[in-house]
């Protein structure tokens, strides 16, 4: 008993206690719900069995039912478009801005900090702002497109099934660009300046230096930012709730919103859980990529 106490005070026991707290917290708050969610996707759940833990086991019936629904594939497709569109937009604009601020003109760091405002804003607020911007009758976006002659008539971004998903993507790109920019700026700043001088003396022009030095040196940062982007876009819920509510007619519905809709609006908890499990697989994949790309840091 005395040895155990002294180990906790000064030794391995202390390390274990330190690790045990976050691990225990993680297991309680994230691990258990995750496991419960997986379990629920294999059970028959209705309003009357909600409070119980052991419910009738139905095997893969929930999965079969889910894929028999007509809206499942379109929603999965929407999710893919949303994820790819958001990540591509956030990354490209973020990288462009990071390169722009890298030039380090007077006030660059101050202005870069200001960009973070979009990242710290709550999703619902961002959604409300974009609702005004996107508004069909009096929205700024329509006004600008009309004045520049790109469109002739108003686009009803939020209620036209052809545009509703892209309306949310636009808002999400705006929301996530600053975060991409900051991480990419950090990556850029960690590339030693003399590499560029050496490459310049070796005859490389600006474009060649970007392709042969900047991009390869940024590989781990880019891997991390894209996998984080995948995780964040799959978590994006607020914007859907604020802008389109998944509509009209599921045209802007994505899995994360649909899972909530099935569980808490239609009370089909089993299907909600089933979609969540499918998403877990994707997020797990992204996490592995993230962990791997931050581990393989290439530094001289």
């Amino acid at each position, binding site marked *: 008993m005395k040895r155990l106490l002294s180990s906790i005070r000064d030794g391995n026991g202390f390390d274990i206690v330190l690790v045990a707290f976050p691990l225990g917290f993680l297991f309680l708050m994230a691990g258990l719900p995750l496991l419960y969610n997986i379990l629920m996707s294999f059970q028959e759940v209705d309003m009357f069995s909600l409070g119980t833990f052991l419910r009738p086991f139905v095997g893969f019936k929930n999965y079969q039912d889910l894929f028999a629904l007509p809206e499942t594939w379109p929603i999965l497709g929407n999710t893919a478009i949303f994820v790819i569109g958001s990540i591509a937009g956030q990354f490209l604009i973020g990288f462009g801005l990071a390169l722009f601020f890298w030039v380090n003109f007077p006030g660059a760091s101050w202005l870069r900090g200001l960009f973070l405002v979009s990242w710290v804003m709550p999703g619902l607020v961002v959604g409300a702002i974009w609702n005004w911007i996107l508004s069909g009758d009096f929205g700024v976006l329509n006004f600008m497109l009309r004045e520049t002659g790109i469109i002739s008539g108003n686009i009803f971004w939020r209620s036209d099934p052809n545009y509703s998903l892209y309306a949310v993507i636009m808002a999400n790109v705006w929301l996530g660009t600053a975060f991409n920019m900051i991480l990419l700026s950090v990556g850029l700043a960690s590339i030693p300046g003399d590499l560029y001088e050496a*490459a*310049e*003396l070796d*005859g490389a022009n600006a474009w060649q230096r970007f392709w042969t030095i900047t991009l390869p040196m940024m590989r781990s940062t880019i891997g991390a930012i894209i996998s984080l982007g995948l995780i964040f876009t799959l978590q994006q819920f607020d914007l859907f709730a604020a802008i389109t509510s998944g509509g009209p007619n599921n045209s802007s519905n994505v899995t994360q919103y649909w899972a909530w809709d099935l569980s808490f609006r239609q009370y089909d908890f089993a299907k909600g859980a089933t979609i969540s499990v499918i998403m877990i697989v994707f997020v797990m994949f992204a996490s592995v990529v993230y962990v791997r790309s931050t581990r393989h840091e290439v530094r*001289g």
Partner: protein
Amino acid sequence: MTKQIELSGVNKYYGAFHALKNIELSIEKGSFVALVGPSGCGKSTLLRSLAGLESISTGDLKIAGELMNNVPPRKRDIAMVFQSYALYPHMTVEQNLTYSLRIRGVPKAQAKKAAEEVAATTGLSQLLGRYPRELSGGQRQRVAMSRAIIRDPKAFLFDEPLSNLDAALRVHMRKEIRTLHDRLGATSVYVTHDQIEAMTMADHVVVMKDGVIEQQGAPLELYDRPANRFVAGFIGSPAMNFVPAVVGEDGRSLAVDVGEKQTIVLDRQLQPGRKVTAGLRPEHLHFVEPGQGVFRLPVGIVESTGSATYITTSTAAEVTIVETSRRQVKTGDVIDVSIRPADVHVFDGETGLRV
């Protein structure tokens, strides 16, 4: 001999700071030039200006006869070895070597062959597949040099390339760089703060201080006839002793202020009564039998390296003597020391210029 690099009236300003002041320097093809001076003297700025990494504010910079003032670095055909080596960490040794060739669109097979040839001369053949992080400091240094050699540039620039190596390797690489220079018949400009590196490697040494070239010339010329007190003190190790002195009535004797005033008889005529500084190199001061010397000096500190003994006197103006004989001396002894009149350097007491 043709001039490979010519600088005339070159000035460099950073805002109000005047980093390079009226630099006049011409470097002959095939010569090895060392830029040496204390940190902040402008030697690195000068080197970076040659490379084009810094632009010069006024003056002309010519490489191989062409005006280069506004030519970007990549078009100057100059190779540089950085203090940090600046190897590309995401490329293997071979890719590092062939980078400049690949950029210029040299076919892969040809680039590979060139890399193998250069690697064979610098002893890197076994390491071509490795990444820089897997190499030792000396090997990285060799990669950095090979990367410069493979291009066959108009000039090589070295920016303190040996300062990250340990002492033994530094001495070794010194010879290796010089041998390589001779074999390639290259033109090299070498920046260092270590005067021994400059003296041993270069054909032509340029001593700089506060953005000004204090003196330039062959290494031994600088050692034998330093133009001013700064160069005299900077070249040679241990550093030259400076003692205040006054020229005697006859203009040929020097009353030197060490301990009791002592007199050196010179081999030349100076203006009587002039206040000067006498420069005495430690290695030019020799022990003599009592009563024979020009100095009688009390011994302060005695340090022995084995090959030589460094004796520092306990006089007000400290004098260091390097003695290679094993004569026993200890603190508190009084020794008799002599110097050949020709070895006495005389500098003006105020301007510090050679008299």
